[in-house]
């Protein structure tokens, strides 16, 4: 899923300062799961902003609403009336959701309430870790299901750097050495042969380096 983190209150306050009536629009999918922008977070942020502005004697009216997904037009249409009632929309969705909203509501001010950070997994309750960079050319079969592009701090494609210690990356003792994980897993699977493969320099064109990407499924287009 996409992992995001709510922006600092001070930054959000400055964005909202010119407006009196604001819709805080949550998203019920990824950002809800990572506690950045679901129903609870939208309600909490609304109260926090009212309290923050209240200390400055600036009145702000907030309306909170959460749709299932802000990255799909079918869902964001449910917010149309609420958008029309307010001067600006503070979207708690990822960057894709904010832009989908901006595309749908061309005459409304759309503001981002979260910083979109990475594609990750829920490693344990409350801990989300980055697992995928969306490089557009997945090689996880070679690496035993562990991505060196994302999980190796140096993005090395041909083995460890030599700087790891006790299975931890020299960049931070909190980071597992991806190559230690890869070697351990391939060994456990009896696939050590994969380690003999030479991986040529990565072609980054399928990634964002080749410009914004599109995915077209012709069989679904009418």
């Amino acid at each position, binding site marked *: 899923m996409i992992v995001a983190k709510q922006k600092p209150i001070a930054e959000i306050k400055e964005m909202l300062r010119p407006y009196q009536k604001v819709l805080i629009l949550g998203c019920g999918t990824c950002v809800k799961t990572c506690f950045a922008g679901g129903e609870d977070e939208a309600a*909490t942020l609304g109260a926090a902003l009212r309290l923050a502005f209240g*200390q400055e004697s600036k009145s702000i009216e907030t309306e909170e609403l959460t749709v299932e997904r802000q990255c799909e037009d079918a869902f964001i249409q449910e917010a149309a009336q609420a958008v029309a009632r307010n001067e600006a929309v503070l979207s708690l969705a990822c960057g894709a959701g904010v832009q989908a909203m901006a595309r749908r509501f061309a005459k409304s001010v759309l503001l981002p309430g979260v910083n979109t950070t990475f594609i990750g997994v829920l490693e344990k309750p409350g801990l989300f870790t980055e697992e995928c960079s969306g490089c557009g050319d997945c090689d996880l079969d070679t690496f035993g299901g562990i991505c060196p592009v994302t999980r190796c701090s140096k993005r090395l494609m041909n083995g460890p750097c030599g700087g790891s210690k006790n299975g931890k990356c020299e960049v931070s003792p909190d980071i597992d050495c991806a190559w230690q994980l890869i070697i351990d897993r391939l060994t456990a699977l009896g696939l050590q042969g994969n380690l003999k493969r030479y991986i040529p320099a990565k072609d980054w064109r399928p990634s964002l380096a080749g410009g914004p990407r599109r995915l077209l499924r012709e069989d679904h287009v009418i």
Partner: protein
Amino acid sequence: MTGTEGCDRYMSSKFEPKIHVFFCVNALDRGVFSTQDPEKAARIQSVKMPCSSMIKDIFMLKAFECGADGVMVVGCPAGRCKRVDGNIRAAKRVAWVQKLLDEIGLGGKRLVYTASSDTDAAITLLLKGLAELGPNPVKPAAQASPR
């Protein structure tokens, strides 16, 4: 132990804070947070919960929006939560909102979590914090409702 014995010294001062208490029904004797003093009772609003872990960020913030000067969450003593770790979750949630209150300038000391065994000390701590911070600077919104 009803949880209000520690109020006397601080609540007799000029600033008489309004306190909202969210408490676990299993945490206090007879499942009641009460006081015999009618004046004190008027300043304490208590909300009973089946477990302290039912507290949400929005409930605590809403209490401040409704004019509370301070908020206290009361859970079961360590190791005695009927829901195993409800009191731990509540304490962590309170700590999170304390940081949020600091961030928005209201002051994290307006909010405390306490185990029911330490209610007296927690109220003393809360009232000390409120003496430093003064009244809630945010006027209750007309539409704000504690319910």
